């Protein structure tokens, strides 16, 4: 696919190879010093892992640069699709890993006598749970976001990704952060802040990677040949900018020692509680919502070959979404020691949040106007529209649960788990699967996927899995919520706590079955994508697009 060639501005291709290598080398040196003087064995392990991976990266970069033979690897005449292909692989790998760990912890809660091992304390639920949450949100979700954002920003700007080797630094640097985070949880390295568990040194590394991500994304926007920034890029940009703000503020901490893994949060008590849930809710709002709405805004119109339903709606819902979302954090702290005025603000804004969220859902679903038959004929489109249906459901349920009186029942129960999983498996999972199903034939230039039938199997198994999961957890959550507050005829509490645990056993079984179905669906998908990339089955025909000529006449938006 060729695009208009522009003379490269500024430094040549070697510049970014040099600066990336220099930064990596400096960090590797610093990490080596820490490794040699580690204050505790966990920091020692992490420093050595980091050091060897960084050195490995430098060696690989050197070998690759050496094999270039004068060829410009960052040729402006072509999009960088290789990095997107890598992202598709890592996303599927981490996704399957994350779903598998989720299944394991579900089984631990269902049959503890089978799935706990007293001699392997590091396999206990408390250490493995963050492995699951980080793997599905940051490893799976993060790689989907990086891969799709790199694909979308290039296509919608009609220019190659900016920064030469820097996008690869972002990609590998982010995945290195994931490895450090995951190994850390098993080793016992955690800050105990949900979705912000990695310790101070991993947070610092992620900050560096994130700054590079923002620079690459903005740099690509600056090079654009399309004067308007497409709506998907507003959402990607808001995701990148806001996550930087949230990550930095929430993770401020005092390390005990620069050579040790442990740090203490700068904040404590009620202040820390709100900062944590300002972060936590907006990790959902910006990592899992605006980032994936960006994906929706590109892949749905592209796959159904129709324009986005309403430009005005996208403007209104974008700004109101990113403004209102931030305030919703206190709904995680209803009836706690957080001052009531803050709880009220959180509740009111959470209820208001329903509208811009549904604005996004409506804009996406109505884009199928004139193409509704695709719901029946194209399972990838169906998956993405059902993703929006789950999005709508979750963004209605969330405001409902944010009402203090409702939250008095739902807080601390499995209802929260149900809500999270309808949003994550339904919305985030399905829109990601849809995007990867779209991308794979495009990237490997196949006419279609290896097997459309396998997509149908995936869709139905995964949907059934989600329904098992959330129904079981709704029943469990409401059951235990009511049992906790039940009084008998003598005015005493009816149930001991352990009785409420016992009451959930059957629901735990069904939940595990639901998760297993979801995992099987993902395995089918990985098989489908691999054989698509290899050009088997229905993917054996090459994709024939009309070659792009010079930029078409520009038209004002709307």
């Amino acid at each position, binding site marked *: 696919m060729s695009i208009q060639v522009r003379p490269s501005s500024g430094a040549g291709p070697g510049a970014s190879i040099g600066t990336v290598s220099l930064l990596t080398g400096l960090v590797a040196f610093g990490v080596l010093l820490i490794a040699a003087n580690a204050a505790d064995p966990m920091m020692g392990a992490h420093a050595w892992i980091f050091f060897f991976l960084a050195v490995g990266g430098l060696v690989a970069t050197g070998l690759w640069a050496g094999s270039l033979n004068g060829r410009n690897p960052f040729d402006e005449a072509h999009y960088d699709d290789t990095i997107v292909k890598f992202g598709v692989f890592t996303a599927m790998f981490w996704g399957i890993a994350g779903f598998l760990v989720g299944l394991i912890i579900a089984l*631990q*809660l269902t049959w*503890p006598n089978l799935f*706990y091992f*007293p*001699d392997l304390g590091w396999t206990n*639920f*408390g250490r493995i749970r*963050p492995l699951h949450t980080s793997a599905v949100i940051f490893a799976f979700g993060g790689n989907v976001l990086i891969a799709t954002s790199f694909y979308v920003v290039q296509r919608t700007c009609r220019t190659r990704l900016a920064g030469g080797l820097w996008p690869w630094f972002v990609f590998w640097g982010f995945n290195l952060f994931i490895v450090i985070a995951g190994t850390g*949880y098993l080793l*016992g*390295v*955690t*800050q*105990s802040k949900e979705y912000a568990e990695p310790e101070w040194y991993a947070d610092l590394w992620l900050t560096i990677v994130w700054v590079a991500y923002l620079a690459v994304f*903005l740099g690509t926007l600056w090079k654009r040949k399309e004067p*308007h*920034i497409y709506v998907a890029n507003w959402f990607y*940009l808001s995701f990148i900018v*806001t996550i930087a703000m949230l990550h930095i503020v929430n993770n401020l*901490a*005092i390390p005990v*020692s620069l050579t*040790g893994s*442990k*740090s*203490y*949060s*700068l*904040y*404590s*008590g*009620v*202040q*820390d*509680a709100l*900062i*944590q849930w300002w972060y936590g809710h*907006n990790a959902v709002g910006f990592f899992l919502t605006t980032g994936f709405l960006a994906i929706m805004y590109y892949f749905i119109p592209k796959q159904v070959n129709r324009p986005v339903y309403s430009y*005005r709606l996208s*403007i209104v819902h974008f700004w109101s979404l*990113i403004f209102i979302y*931030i*305030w919703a*954090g206190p709904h995680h702290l209803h009836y*706690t*020691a957080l*001052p009531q005025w803050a709880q009220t*603000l959180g509740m009111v804004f959470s209820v208001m949040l329903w509208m811009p969220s549904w604005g996004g859902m409506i804009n996406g679903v109505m884009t199928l106007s004139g193409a509704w038959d695709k719901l029946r004929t194209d399972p990838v489109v169906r998956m993405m529209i059902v993703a929006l249906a789950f999005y709508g459901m979750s963004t209605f349920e969330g405001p409902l649960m944010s009402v203090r009186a409702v939250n008095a029942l739902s807080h*601390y*129960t499995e209802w929260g788990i149900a809500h999270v999983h309808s949003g994550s498996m339904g919305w985030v999972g399905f829109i990601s699967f849809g995007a990867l199903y779209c991308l794979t034939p495009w990237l490997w230039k196949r006419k279609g996927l290896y097997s459309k039938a396998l997509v149908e199997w995936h869709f139905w198994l995964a949907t059934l899995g989600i329904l098992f999961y959330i129904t079981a957890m709704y029943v469990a959550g409401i059951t235990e919520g009511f049992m*906790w*507050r*039940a*009084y008998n005829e003598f005015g005493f*509490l009816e149930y001991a*706590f*352990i009785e409420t645990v016992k009451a959930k056993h059957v629901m735990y079984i069904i939940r595990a079955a639901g998760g297993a179905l979801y995992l099987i669906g993902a395995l089918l998908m990985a098989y489908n994508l691999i054989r698509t990339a290899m050009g088997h089955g229905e993917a054996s025909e090459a994709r024939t697009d009309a070659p792009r000529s010079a930029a078409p006449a520009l038209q*004002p938006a*709307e």
Partner: protein
Amino acid sequence: MSIFNRHQKLERHSLLLSAGILVVVAIGGLVEIAPLFYLENTIEKVEGMRPYTPLELKGRNIYIREGCYTCHSQMVRPLRDEVERYGHYSLAAESMYDHPFQWGSKRTGPDLARVGGKYSDEWHLDHLINPAALVPDTVMPPYAFLASKTLRYNDVADHMIALRRAGVPYTDDMIANAKADLVAQASPGADFDAEDGLLERYDGAAGRPGTVKISDFDQDPARITEMDALIAYLQMLGTLVDFTVYEADDLSNRR
């Protein structure tokens, strides 16, 4: 529709768009978070609150390391059934020295905000080693390994210094005697002077006696293990503030 025309300006200038986003997303956090640092009723001190002793601090770090917060909350809500099941609702001040807070977000197991003193040390030992032996329907994992892991505490003073930088009022005296205090709290009868020092420092900070429990928590006098530390931490949760002396009708408590 001039606002939509003006939006085109944002769509053509990525830095304006980025700045607009940053400004818009910063507002909510500032309005909600900043006041918590200066509003009087958020930052009021409560009698009885004191920093964690070195042994309790080590125990808390084990609680965090093992991910106990993923199943246990530490925040009793002002709801009738909850107060009846767990005790007085949690005050903001009771977690003022918790870096980070441990309020939790899920109760797969019961709330632990006031578990201190509810069960004996032996119960905690047996329960942590094999929860199912005491509570047949439990889904809690076993923590037997804590009883065989010797506690590493050479660096405990460094931890207290870091916490002091974050605002916890550890005194120089507390930091200088950190290791001695840790050993004294887990070795009853070994050194009465050391125990007196420990109580003077921490009961002193609390403003009343009885906030520091000295015991051989893991029933293993031969050494100090991680089990000692964790049980010491669990046994003090929710015990610092003395609610029996609270007079709701007192003028100073009326708002």
